[in-house]
């Protein structure tokens, strides 16, 4: 997990939200762990019409101005990575309103 580019923190959780591994800014951050497990539980209930019953979400991202959280589920574990957004790379994609 430490090798992920632009990573500033990470968490590996069990399905019920217990912290297995953590590091960086998210080290032992049980508050964020609980929020994220609740968020996953909520996301399972989104629109069965637009997203079929067999269409499970494979990735959730939460984007702030200068960093974002990537959340993925694999092997019954929840992987959370906090990554910084490089302003030079993001410039081409930003929409100014």
């Amino acid at each position, binding site marked *: 997990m430490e090798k992920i580019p632009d990573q500033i923190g990470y968490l590996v959780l069990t399905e019920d939200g217990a912290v297995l591994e953590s590091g960086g800014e998210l080290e032992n951050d049980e508050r*964020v762990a609980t*929020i*994220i497990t*609740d*968020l996953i539980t*909520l*996301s399972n*209930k*989104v*629109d069965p*019409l*637009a*997203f079929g019953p067999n*269409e*499970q*979400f*494979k*990735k*959730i*991202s*939460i*984007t*702030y*101005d200068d960093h*974002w*959280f990537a959340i993925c589920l694999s092997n019954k574990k929840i992987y959370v990575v906090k990554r910084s957004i490089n302003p030079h790379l993001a410039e081409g994609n930003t929409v100014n309103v």
Partner: protein
Amino acid sequence: MEKELDKVVEEIMSTPNVSGCLVADHQGLCLAAKGTAHVDSAGIIVAISEQACKIQPNLKPPTVCLETEKKQCLIQRHGTITGAIYKDKA
């Protein structure tokens, strides 16, 4: 009264790859829903955006993106209003 909102929703729906659009207030009540977005999911969408705001409450509300193999659901909160856009992946 909701003419302005309808106009915005129409505009979003005319964007390529957008399959649905939903706007809800802070109580989870649906203000507008078009396309694949169902009125009933307004509550859940507001709950998701509120949950995401809790991670860093001192920062401005983040954009939440839920992804499946083929589709995407983008949720953004602005003041008391929460908007969701359902997109098909190109």
